[in-house]
């Protein structure tokens, strides 16, 4: 059978499954035109013909586009339509008004960045909950894979607990940088995003509530890991909790005083962080300060030199 016929039958079978009978000759004619005449790549030709069918037969879009269910580790190429079940691991601050939400999702095979575009009009996801991400597009941004949630995508909460990759890694490194938007911060009451100068990137000038975090870089001399420490981590490491932080801020009449204080206590120190690696991020599960070095570790190195 000719390749064109093969493609046509693939397309037809998909619509037949939905209860639509499509004119086979017409499909073949259009495919031939696109492939032989216009020299369009196969995938584009198929997409174009499918779009034509959808329009011509008045088929509701959601019904047709059903991308295959994949695991995160299989996402290696940009421009693929996929669906996946995943848990929201972390939500970051959106840096652009065109992005509604951005962060990391994970399944048992890996962790990947997701972007929900504001234009998509999709509902917001919550950290720790699991969802079916239907018809999302894979993309490559700054050399890493991510998924984009657009207008034709769908996000459905599912009642499943998806396990993240079991392999936890442990890194001992020095905290070599703390980013500016750390310390005593304000989050938007509606979306929990970090606000700058009382302004939420999405909701504008709204009421916020206080929180604490440290966004920093852990460096072990071989790799860098971006880490986020929450209030609990910070309290364990520095003894400064939210109340104490507010006290520092009001005593010095400066919220930034908390950041300076955290920098003074944390920068240049070594920490052991256990967590799951996702891209260049290390999702902190446990963190402790390294206070020194044990004599037997030094002896081991000296033996190597002997």
């Amino acid at each position: 059978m000719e390749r064109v016929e093969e493609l046509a039958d693939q397309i037809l079978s998909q619509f037949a499954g939905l209860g639509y009978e499509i004119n086979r000759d017409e499909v073949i004619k259009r495919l031939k035109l696109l492939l032989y005449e216009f020299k369009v790549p196969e995938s584009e030709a198929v997409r174009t013909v499918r779009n034509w069918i959808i329009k011509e037969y008045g088929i509701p879009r959601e019904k047709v586009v059903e991308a295959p269910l994949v695991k995160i580790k299989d996402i290696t190429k940009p421009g693929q339509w996929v669906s996946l079940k995943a848990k929201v691991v972390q939500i970051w601050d959106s840096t652009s008004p065109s992005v509604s939400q951005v962060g990391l999702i994970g399944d048992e095979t890996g962790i990947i960045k997701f972007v929900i575009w504001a234009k998509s009009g999709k509902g917001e996801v919550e950290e720790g909950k699991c969802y079916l991400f239907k018809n999302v597009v894979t993309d490559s941004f700054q050399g890493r894979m991510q998924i984009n949630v657009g207008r034709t995508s769908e996000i459905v909460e599912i009642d499943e607990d998806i396990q993240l990759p079991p392999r936890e890694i442990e890194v001992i490194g020095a905290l070599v940088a703390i980013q500016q938007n750390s310390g005593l911060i304000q989050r938007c009451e509606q979306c929990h995003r970090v606000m700058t100068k009382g302004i939420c990137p999405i909701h504008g000038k709204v009421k916020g509530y206080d929180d604490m975090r440290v966004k920093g870089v852990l460096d072990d001399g071989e790799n860098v890991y971006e880490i986020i420490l929450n209030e609990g981590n910070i309290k364990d490491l520095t003894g400064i909790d939210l109340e104490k932080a507010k006290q520092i801020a009001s005593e010095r009449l400066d919220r930034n005083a908390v950041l300076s204080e955290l920098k003074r206590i944390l920068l240049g120190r070594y920490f052991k962080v256990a967590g799951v690696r996702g891209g260049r991020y290390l999702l902190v599960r446990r963190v402790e300060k390294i206070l020194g070095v044990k004599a037997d570790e030094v002896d081991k190195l000296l033996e190597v030199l002997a």
Partner: protein
Amino acid sequence: MNGFRRREVARRAFAYEINRSTYRFPREDEKSPAYVLTPLGVRVNRVFIVGALLDKEEIKPDSGIWRIRVSDPTSAIYGYVSRFQPDALESLMEIDVPELVAIVGKVRTFEVGARIFVSLRPEYVSPVESGVRDYWVYETAKHTIERIKAMERKEDEDVKLAWQIYNPNLDEYRAIVKQALLTLKGTIAEGEEEEEEIQEFEEEFEFEEEEWDLSDILKE
């Protein structure tokens, strides 16, 4: 990685090794990091160093450029801090020497006549506890030993280049690492706060940098 640069790793190396790193890689373009090759065959731009801040002085009154001298157990290294490094300058002003500090900074080279000197351009200077220094010496020893092993294998391109340019005596570096580690044994066993710095391998620089144009190493 078209157009996108990840944050660069801060290498761990003793001042002894950094001070002897005189080979500069040509820059790919204006924005790419300026790497130097150490005698043990690693490309270095950003480094993390923990040591004793021994001196800080403004090179000329009201110049706003401060010269610092920091020493780890192997050697001392000079650094320059100016208003182009506001974080480092701010904390430096609050530190009374001598003090144990952690420094993240870039390695810079500059020529004086036929000689090439190495200095640090700190991004921050942060007073730390002696435990941090201990761990740094241990960690840096570990990394240096790995580099010595790589030098023995002679496989890596940068390693081959290092042999060609420096032809280092690896035993000299083993001795340096050993000395550094032995200072730790002192602190751990006796709990002493400050160890005497080992100066045996240090080459003394005669610095009269007032006459030099420092703009290259300070700007950017």
